């Protein structure tokens, strides 16, 4: 053994020591701070050929995959170097700070331990409940979040509408479509938009989504329709369909890391991938105002209408079925109730509505049947007026009005008509108010008056109001005056006596000129007696010569005048029964006149 052997031995020894010293067993995580529900990877790697790998306790986390073992072997200048890694895909389930304890491995009979790793788990998205830990085969690839940028080109979602621009109420088809060029192992719908602004109806898929080949942007894809929906925009304007999202686990081809991968076909990866479609905007045009029919109630599409009746000759109290059928494509379920006008004397019940609607890729189509039950209660010839139905046809962009037939119905007198009307007590019925309206205008005189010049409270009003009481007061004052003047009856009478006498004398003179002597004397006597009665305030019945004489005497009338008066009265008395010749009638008249004058002068 020469010195060279010693040197070689020494060097080999050192080298083997170096070699042994160079074993590195490290633990690494893809991130140290994760959110709950987020996936991360722990990798334990050793740069030597190790065995007896003991994994640490990973119970703080949910194990999604692993251990995935990969081994590398390199030959450099005839020297083989090996490295192995053991990786786990974990998901944080709880918040907090956790420690991944060291793992251990035995290399060349020596035990190595890895470093400890602290993981901080913060609040993230909620933890999915399905445990995927038993998914896939051990050691066969691993799911990760890598390569999402590349994946988005080969796996994406689209919300596809068949029309971008529609009229309000016009139907359009929305399809949620998956485009893929990779194998999808699993998929899950995360979120479906709620499609506000549309009335929607799902197209029922007959079987699970089938993939078909389709070309999009020059690339061939496997395409599947996840869901198809018929939409009816409810208002005009731009309505955005929110994105929908799905998460996939896809199997993707990776670059082979080494020939072993290539050889064993290990160059596939299972990748978690969440995809989201782009929002889609639908331009909704309002229905044109021009040419809108009067009774238009919002039907959009293409329709036909048909009315039928089961009999048109019947007896009172029997029923008629009046059927209106609207067939076509469009928003049949959104059709408003028709308001057919029936004869007012018919009893009418709310219609039974039967929809027969099919929903497919071409839209909603089918028919709606309104079945009205009518019961005529009285005999007569009636007519059911035609119904106007109008719809907007979006393909031509114009309104179409349809009219049904009208029906003449002959109602005979029913057998049990009396029975029915007997229920209401008697044969009378209320007059039905068919249509209400405001009362008609007033015609005739406009009766215009100046503003703010109302009669009540005006000057004229008060003057007129006062006129009555004033009149009253005036009358009262006048009457009192009168009464005051008339209060002395004697005075008044005596005042009036001369006048009365004059009247009688005038009468006498008239008789005189008529040569009617008897009447003349009577008038003279009446005149004198009347005069004296008034003048002396003695009632006519009490008048006789003695009372006159004594009364005159008390009034201090001269004796001669009294005698004269008495003579004249006697003369008049006598002349009424016997002709008087000794004195002419003219003289008697003058005498009476003189006497009265004399008495007037003396009293």
């Amino acid at each position, binding site marked *: 053994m020469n010195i060279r052997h010693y040197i070689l031995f020494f060097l080999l020894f050192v080298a083997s020591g170096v070699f042994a010293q160079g074993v590195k067993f490290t633990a690494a995580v893809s991130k140290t701070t994760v959110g709950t529900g987020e996936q991360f990877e722990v990798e334990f790697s050793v740069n030597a050929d190790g065995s007896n790998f003991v994994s640490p306790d990973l119970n703080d986390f949910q194990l999604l995959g692993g251990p995935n073992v990969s081994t590398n072997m390199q030959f450099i200048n005839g020297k083989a170097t090996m490295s192995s890694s053991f990786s786990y895909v974990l998901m944080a389930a709880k918040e907090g700070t956790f420690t991944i304890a060291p793992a251990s491995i035995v290399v060349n009979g020596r035990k190595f331990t890895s470093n400890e790793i602290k993981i901080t788990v913060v609040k993230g998205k909620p933890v999915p409940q399905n445990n995927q830990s038993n998914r896939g085969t051990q050691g066969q690839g691993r799911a990760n979040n890598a390569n999402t940028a590349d994946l988005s080109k080969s796996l994406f979602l689209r919300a596809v509408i068949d029309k971008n621009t529609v009229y309000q109420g016009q139907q359009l088809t929305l399809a949620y479509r998956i485009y893929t060029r990779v194998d999808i192992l699993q998929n899950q719908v995360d979120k479906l938009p709620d499609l506000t602004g549309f009335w929607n109806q799902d197209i029922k898929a007959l079987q699970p989504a089938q993939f078909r080949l389709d070309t999009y942007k020059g690339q061939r894809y496997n395409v599947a329709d996840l869901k198809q929906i018929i939409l009816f925009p409810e208002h005009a304007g731009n309505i955005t369909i929110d994105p929908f999202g799905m998460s996939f686990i896809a199997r993707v081809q990776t670059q082979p890391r080494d020939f072993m991968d290539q050889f064993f076909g290990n160059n596939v990866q299972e990748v978690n991938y969440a995809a989201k479609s782009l929002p889609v905007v639908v331009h909704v045009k309002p229905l044109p105002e021009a040419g809108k029919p009067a009774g238009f109630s919002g039907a959009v599409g293409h329709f036909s209408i048909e009315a039928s009746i089961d009999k048109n000759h019947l007896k009172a109290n029997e029923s008629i079925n009046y059927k209106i059928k609207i067939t076509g494509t469009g928003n049949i379920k959104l059709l408003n109730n028709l308001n057919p006008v029936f004869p007012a004397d018919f009893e009418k019940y709310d219609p039974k509505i039967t929809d027969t609607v099919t929903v497919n890729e071409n839209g909603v189509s089918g028919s709606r049947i309104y079945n009205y039950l009518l019961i005529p209660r009285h005999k007569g010839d009636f007519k059911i007026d035609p119904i106007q139905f109008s719809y907007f046809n979006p393909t031509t962009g114009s309104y179409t009005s349809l009219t049904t037939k009208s029906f003449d119905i002959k109602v005979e007198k029913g057998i049990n008509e009396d029975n029915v009307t007997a229920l209401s007590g008697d044969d009378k019925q209320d007059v039905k108010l068919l249509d209400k309206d*405001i009362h008609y205008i007033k015609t005739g005189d406009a009766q215009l008056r100046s503003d703010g010049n109302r009669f009540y409270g005006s000057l004229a009003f008060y003057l007129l109001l006062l006129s009555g009481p004033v*009149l009253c007061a005036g009358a009262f004052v006048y009457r009192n005056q009168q009464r005051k003047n008339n209060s002395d009856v004697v005075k008044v009478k005596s005042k009036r006596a001369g006048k009365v006498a004059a009247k009688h004398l005038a009468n006498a003179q008239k008789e005189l000129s008529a040569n009617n002597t008897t009447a003349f004397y009577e008038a003279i006597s009446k005149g004198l007696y009347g005069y004296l009665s008034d003048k002396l305030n003695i009632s006519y019945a009490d008048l006789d010569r003695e009372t006159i004489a004594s009364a005159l005497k008390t009034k201090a009338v001269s004796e001669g005048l009294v005698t004269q008066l008495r003579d004249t009265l006697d003369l008049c008395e006598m002349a009424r029964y016997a002709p008087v010749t000794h004195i002419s009638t003219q003289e008697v008249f003058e005498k009476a006149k003189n006497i009265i004058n004399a008495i007037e002068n003396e009293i």
Partner: protein
Amino acid sequence: MKFDLFKIGLCFVMMLGLPALSFGDDGTQALFEKANNYYSKNKYKEAVSTYNQLLKSRESSAIVYYNLGNAFYKDGDIASALLYYEKAHKLSPGDEDINFNIRFANARTTDKIDEAPELFLSKWWRVVILAVSADTLGIVAIVLFLFGSGLLVFYFFSVSGSIKKFSFFSGLALFFLGIVSIIIGGSQVGYFNSNKQAIIFTSSVSVKGSPADKANTVFVIHDGTKVNVLDNANGWLRIKLANGNEGWLKPSDVKEI
């Protein structure tokens, strides 16, 4: 003598009273008939403008207001229709046509307002004072006063006992009735003067809790609703609804009846 006094009184009544009752001159009457013609031919817009022309002369009558309200109603302007119906109602509160159309048009306004319960006495009293227009009541009062005076004058001058008694008491009764009708008329004028009302013309009005733009909105009312105007301060109107709710709004939102 008595007869003469009565005759003079009657002449006095005619002289002062008839001008108040006189009808418009021929020009306005022709215009009125023209407007009525438009209405009957369903030309409501023309009818509205013609009726308005009539009212431009600062003259008014319940009939023209009522017809104008009808024309507005037929033209679809419910708020204006109600405004003119209410104006007509003010001039002729007892007219059943006007009251019916007010009820009818109110059914077509947006707001449904239940009237706050009211004591039946005040309701009856309102029915009484609004039954006949104040002008008619005034004329009735004058006529009652005149007849009462006539009977009293008769009483003053009549001689026979029983006739005298009868004329005295009936005259007093007529005077009493006249005073009652004056009181009713006065109450009616007072009622319309104190109860200022307005119709909302803006299609949607936010009624504020206090007279400021930033104040809280207490409630929202719509065109055609009738409100009572309680107060007017700083360019704001304090209003009260029939159901008792109160608030403030801008005068531009309403038109006073």
